[in-house]
C-alpha cells in the first residue's frame, strides 16, 4: 500500500512482507497508469462527437428586423436548428398576461425555474413587454407548440385566453410561454439570449451588455 513508509518502518528489505507491499504498490501504479491512459485515449473519441467548430460557428448570433412584424403577428427564425418565436404582442394580449384568471391556471407564473435569462424574469418574460422571444420547443418531448393567439370560448380548452397549444400531447402555454398546470410539459418555454441592437433590431444569441446567459444552462430545453 504505502511503499515509502512501509520500507522506512518495519520489515527488513528483501523480507516477504516488504516484497508484497512493493508489489501491491507497483500493481496499483500500473493500474492507475493504465486507467489514465485509457481515459486519455477515449477522450478524443468522446469529444469527437461533440459539436464541431463549424457547427458552433453556424450557431453565432443572428439579426432580425422587427419593423415588419405587425402587432399580433409571430415570425419564426431558425437559430441553432431551433425555431425561435418572435411575437409582437398586442395591448390586449399584454393585459391578459397579468389577469389573475390566467395566472391562476399557470404552473410557474413568476418564472422561478431557470428557463430564461435574468433580464426576462418578469411578468412578460422579455426585455420589451410587446416583443416575446421564445424557443418554440415544447418542454415535454420537443414538439412545436402551435400559435393560437385568439381568445376562444372552447378550443383548445374552455376560456382560452390565447397562447400556445402543443398538438403532440396537449401541453398549453400562455403568450409569454408560461406553461399551464396539469399538462405533460413541466416547464415554461425557454427564452434564448437576445438583445436590441437598435430600436427595431433584434439580435438573437447575444446578451445585453453586462449580462451572461447561456441557453444550455436552462433547466429544460
Amino acid at each position, binding site marked *: 500500500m504505502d511503499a515509502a513508509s512501509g520500507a522506512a518502518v518495519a520489515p527488513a528489505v528483501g523480507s516477504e512482507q516488504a516484497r508484497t507491499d512493493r508489489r501491491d504498490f507497483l500493481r496499483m501504479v500500473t493500474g492507475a497508469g493504465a486507467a489514465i491512459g485509457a481515459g486519455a485515449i477515449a477522450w478524443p473519441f*468522446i469529444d469527437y*462527437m*461533440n*459539436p*464541431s467548430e463549424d*457547427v458552433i460557428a453556424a*450557431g453565432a448570433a443572428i439579426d432580425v428586423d422587427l419593423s415588419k412584424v405587425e402587432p399580433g403577428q409571430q415570425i*419564426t427564425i*431558425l437559430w*441553432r*436548428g*431551433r*425555431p425561435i418565436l418572435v411575437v409582437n404582442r398586442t395591448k390586449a394580449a399584454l393585459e391578459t398576461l397579468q389577469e389573475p384568471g390566467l395566472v391562476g391556471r399557470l404552473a410557474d407564473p413568476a418564472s422561478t425555474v431557470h428557463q430564461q435569462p435574468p433580464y426576462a424574469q418578469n411578468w412578460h418574460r422579455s426585455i420589451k413587454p410587446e416583443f416575446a422571444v421564445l424557443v418554440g420547443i415544447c418542454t*415535454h*418531448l*420537443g*414538439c*412545436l407548440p402551435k400559435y393560437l393567439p385568439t381568445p376562444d370560448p372552447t378550443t383548445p380548452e374552455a376560456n382560452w385566453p390565447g397562447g400556445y397549444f402543443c*398538438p*403532440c*400531447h*396537449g401541453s398549453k402555454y400562455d403568450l409569454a410561454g408560461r406553461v399551464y398546470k396539469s399538462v*405533460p410539459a*413541466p416547464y415554461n418555454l425557454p427564452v434564448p439570449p437576445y438583445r436590441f441592437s437598435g430600436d427595431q433590431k433584434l439580435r438573437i444569441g447575444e446578451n445585453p451588455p453586462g449580462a451572461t446567459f447561456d441557453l*444550455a444552462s436552462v433547466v*429544460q*430545453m
Partner: protein
Amino acid sequence: MAGLHKSEFTNPVIRWVDTRMPVFTMMQKEYGSFPTPRNFNYFWNFGALAMVNLMIMIITGIFLAMNYAPNTAMAFDSVQRIMRDVNYGWLLRYVHQNGASMFFIVVYIHIFRGLYYGSYKYPRELLWMIGVVLLILMMATAFMGYVLPWGQMSYWGATVITNLFSAFPIVGDPIVTWLWGGFSVDNPTLNRFFSLHYLLPFVLVGVTFLHVVALHITGSNNPLGIDVKSPQDTLPFHPYYTIKDSVGICVYLMVFAALVFFAPNFLGDPNNFIPANPLQTPADIVPEWYFLPFYAILRSVPNKLGGVCMMFGSLLVLFVLPWLDTSKVRSARFRPLYRPFIFVLVVSVVILGMVGAHRPEGIWVVLGRVCTAYYFLHFLVLLPIIGKFERPLPLPESISKPVLGGGGGPLPAGAAAKPMEKA
C-alpha cells in the same frame, strides 16, 4: 504429429484443412451431432429464424448503403431514388424495412417462449441476459435505421427519443448535445446514426455468437422444462432439427413475402413519405409498432424523469428476472398458478402497444397506467410470491417417456400451431 488435430473427416481436402484448423469438427459437433432434446415444439424455431433475419438485414442493408446518401440534403431523395430508379431497389428496401418488423415479431415470440417455458432459470441465466443485451442492441439499431430515410417521422422520432435523455438532472443536456453533435437533430446526427446503424448489426453478430456459446454449454431447454437425463432424451441436431427449422423458415418466408409484396407499407407511417421539416411537427408522433408498448409506459407516468426511468426499467427488469422468479419448476405447463399470469402479461403488453398508438386521452390514459402497473407488478411482486405458494403439478420422469409412449403428459398440438398464427 504433435499440434495437429485428429480429424474424423475422410474427404482429403476437408481433412487437410480440419487437421490444421478444426472448424469442420467444430461445426459437426455444434450443429451436426449436437444432442438436442427430442420434444421441441415449433416455439424452438424462433432462435434460428432470428439468425436468418439478421443475415437478411445485413445483406439488404449493405446493398442499400451503396446507394444511400447520409446527408440531410440528400438522404430523403436518395431513398426515393433507391425506390424508383435503382434496379430492384424497391425490393431490397421493402425487405429491409419489413425485415425490421419481422425481426421484432420473431424475437418477441422467442422471448415469450423463454418466459413460458422458464428458459431463463438456472443454469441458463447468463444465456438469458445475453439475450436481453441482444434485444437492446436490436432496438438501438432499428431506432437509428428509422432515422436514415429522413422523413418527418424519422426526424421527429429522433428528436423525441434523444430528448428523453435530457430528463436526467445535470448530465442530461450535455448528453443530448453530445448525441446530436450540434444544437438539434441535424446533419451530424444523421451521419453518426448511419455509421452506428452500419456497425451495430455486426456487434449483434458477435453477441449472438456468445449467446450460442452459452447455449451449447447448458444445452437447450424444452417444453417440459426438465433436464436431459439420458441419450434417449435427445436427437442429433442434424438432420432432425435442421429439417424442423427449415419448415419454420419456409412459413416465415411466406409471411415475410406476403408483407413485402402485398402490404409493404402496412406497418409504416405515412408521415415518413414527407421529407423531414424542423419547422413542422406531425400531429401525432408515434414510433414504429415494435416500440409502442415501451412508448406507452413512458407516457403513462405523469413525471418526465419518472417516465424515462420506468421505460428503461421495463427492459432492465428482464436482466434480473432469473432471480425474481423463485420457482424451481421451469415450464409453465406444470405451474398452475403462474400460467394464467403469463397470459395476463402478454395481454397487458398488447394493450400497452395499443395505448402507445393513441393519444393519451380518456380511456387510453387509464389503460396505460393499469397495464404499466401490471407489467412491473408481474415481475417485481407476483413472480417472487407465486413461486413460494404454488404447488407445481408432478413433473414427468424424463423427456423420452411421454414421447416414446411410456405414459406421461401428452404434447398438446395447440402449442405448435400458435406461433404460426402470430407470425
